[in-house]
């Protein structure tokens, strides 16, 4: 029974359970739903969840545990040494899968698939004929293991269906048994909903932990091969895949911060002023048109901004600023990437600030206007100070986006790591280097590749601090008016 069919069957059971639960509950109240503890639909939902949930849990457990068990029992059939055990097992699985597919496509009969006889070469040829390409001819042990693997897997699939359906039916009947007018179905359903929500929340948390853990693990490998001090304080970035690289993070960090700084210099005032105009001056009609238009900017993929940097802003800056003023010849520059990234951040800053400005109570404005302050005085002296913590939070969030941005940097600022003050020079950032260290032919044991994880971890720590700070400030600000 395939997973899909199991699922359909369980869903069907759960649907049946819904109506059965409802009907039984109504019947137990003698047809009068007012004597029931909960609404009929709650009883239905309760029975239906009972049919669904245990079945899903059994299915999940089975899918995790059974392959592991089959693997270990099949591996014990193989006479190979420790190191190549994985490879041998992979071969077994490929043969097994190939045979399954061949049977499914009708190329060979099921019986024939279990009785491949002959010398290794013959077997390899036969397998090749049904579409299984093998590196080397399989020996008999491998073939036996493959056979055993297939047999076990098939058995496992069969029992999986049985177990899941049994769980579903059993739980359904149990739920129906407890369903009567006294039963607190509503509370139970409530608990299940709460459990699901907790599950979703914990998935988010655990993935974060998982990401950090994997980064930590790989970074540790890196620091085992490359001195941490040289990584964090080295001023030269010159990876060399033949060894002897300089992997100092400082030029990359400098590029990251420089570009982000220019982006923020550009985005914060414009975004903030746009937000002030939108929330304080613009009439409702204008706001209805202009606000979505600004937010459209936020929907543009960053690669498109990157193209804009590459073909428009970069050459423009070079031809009209950098060359005439003698700052450099490069179209890729910190300035190009910074400005384009700034444009990308404008809607981000403005829509966050707009929300924050709107959260300043109207009574504050009334109080100030009622004292004879003009609108701009009111904004400057009352609205902005009240909103300042929130705006700082918005800026920090924008900063952490700028720090994590990659595409615009590659296309706008280039990929050359450099420590320079000249904003018209090409530089690059941490994110760009992470990509370039991991693409192409890479050897996951060399420090040149592993450095990507250390870079990622550093970046993550950086933006995490910024985000925590931003959230802290935003939260503090919220309390002010509650």
């Amino acid at each position, binding site marked *: 029974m395939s997973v899909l069919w199991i699922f359909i069957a369980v869903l069907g059971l759960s649907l049946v359970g819904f109506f059965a639960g409802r009907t039984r509950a109504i019947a137990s109240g003698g047809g009068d739903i007012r004597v029931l503890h909960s609404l009929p639909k709650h009883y239905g939902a309760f029975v239906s969840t009972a049919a669904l949930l245990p079945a899903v849990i059994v299915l999940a457990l089975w899918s995790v545990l059974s392959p592991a068990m089959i693997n270990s029992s099949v591996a014990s059939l193989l006479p190979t040494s420790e190191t190549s055990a994985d490879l041998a097992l992979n071969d077994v699985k490929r043969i097994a899968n190939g045979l399954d597919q061949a049977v499914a496509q009708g190329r060979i009969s099921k019986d024939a698939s279990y009785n491949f006889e002959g010398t290794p070469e013959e077997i390899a040829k036969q397998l090749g004929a049904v579409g299984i390409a093998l590196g080397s001819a399989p020996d008999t042990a491998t073939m036996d293991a493959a056979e055993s693997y297939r047999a076990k897997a098939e058995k496992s699939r069969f029992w999986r269906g049985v177990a899941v359906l049994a769980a579903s039916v059993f739980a359904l009947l149990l739920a129906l048994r407890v369903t009567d007018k006294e039963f607190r179905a509503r509370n139970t359903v409530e608990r299940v909903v709460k459990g699901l929500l907790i599950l979703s929340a914990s998935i988010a948390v655990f993935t974060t932990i998982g990401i950090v853990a994997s980064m930590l693990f790989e970074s540790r490998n890196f620091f085992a091969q490359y001195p941490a001090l040289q990584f964090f304080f080295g001023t030269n970035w010159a990876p060399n895949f033949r060894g002897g690289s300089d992997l100092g993070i400082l030029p990359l960090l400098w590029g990251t911060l420089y570009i982000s700084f220019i982006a923020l210099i550009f985005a914060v005032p414009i975004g903030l002023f746009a937000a002030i105009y939108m929330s304080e001056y613009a009439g409702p009609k204008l706001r209805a048109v202009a606000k979505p238009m600004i937010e459209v900017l936020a929907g543009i993929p960053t690669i498109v901004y990157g193209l804009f940097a590459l073909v428009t802003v970069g050459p423009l800056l070079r031809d009209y600023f950098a060359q005439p003023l003698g700052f450099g010849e490069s179209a890729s520059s910190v300035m190009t990437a910074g400005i384009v990234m700034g444009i990308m951040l404008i809607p981000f800053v403005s829509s966050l600030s707009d929300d924050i400005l709107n959260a300043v109570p109207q009574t*504050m404005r009334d109080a100030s206007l009622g004292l*004879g302050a003009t609108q701009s005085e009111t904004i400057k002296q009352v609205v902005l100070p009240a909103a300042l913590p929130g705006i700082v939070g918005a800026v920090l969030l924008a900063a952490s986006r700028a720090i994590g941005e990659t595409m615009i940097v590659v296309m706008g600022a280039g990929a050359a790591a450099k420590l320079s003050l000249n904003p018209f020079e090409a530089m690059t950032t941490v994110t760009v280097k992470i990509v370039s260290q991991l693409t192409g032919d890479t050897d996951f044991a060399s420090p040149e590749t592993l450095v990507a994880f250390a870079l990622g971890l550093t970046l993550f720590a950086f933006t995490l601090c910024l985000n925590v700070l931003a959230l802290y400030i935003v939260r503090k600000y919220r309390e002010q008016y509650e």
Partner: protein
Amino acid sequence: MKDIQLENRAVTDEKTKIAANNVNVYYGDTRAIKDVNIDIKSRTVTAFIGPSGCGKSTFLRCLNRMNDTIDSCRVEGRILLDNEDIYDTKVDPVQLRAKVGMVFQKPNPFPKSIYDNVAYGPRIHGLASKKADLDGIVEDSLRKAALWDEVKDRLQAPGTGLSGGQQQRLCIARAIATSPEVLLMDEPCSALDPIATAQVEELIDGLRTNFSVVIVTHSMQQAARVSQQTAFFHLGNLVELGDTDHVFTNPTDPRTESYITGRIG
């Protein structure tokens, strides 16, 4: 209305501070104020009473053009402050509001220090050139608002940290710091407990020596306690205007009588 205790007070014979002629106010197409004519005297407390939704706040907000901040609101008719039309194009609403201060229903101190709250108006209008002058204005306003003794040791503490009643008195201090000529109060006690209410009422009575006060209230007892003139609004109409004693003891209009005896409202 026997339970409302009316003091015998001198009926004011002050001159007219604000005169409204045929004022109509519209929110979009709905007419919220209908042909209101009223004279508000200087150095007098005038109370606006009436069932809720009858337009008291709307009319009050016309007197310092706070309605300008509401897009859909339109005011017709003439409102004269010292014989000058406040809706005339050459009148700057900003300057008008410095002369006609306002205290709102909910205490709304700025999230600044107590001192900065009170100093806000004087700073905006450049009323004090020296720090000492500003200190003087702040102290004076807080004293007039009967708050000085409670806050004199913590002027730099945030105004939002005060109790509700103190916050409202702070807002009154803030409003009188700009030395307005008229003080508009929109249900200033509705968010306060009885003790704070009593303090604010006492304060309002004291303010009469310097300002012309217009207070909106839903409490007839309060109107009777603090005002010399009472205006009764009903469904956007000004139904009755007269000396407070008179309105409460001898109303001329049957609607007023129904309202103060509790039959409508």
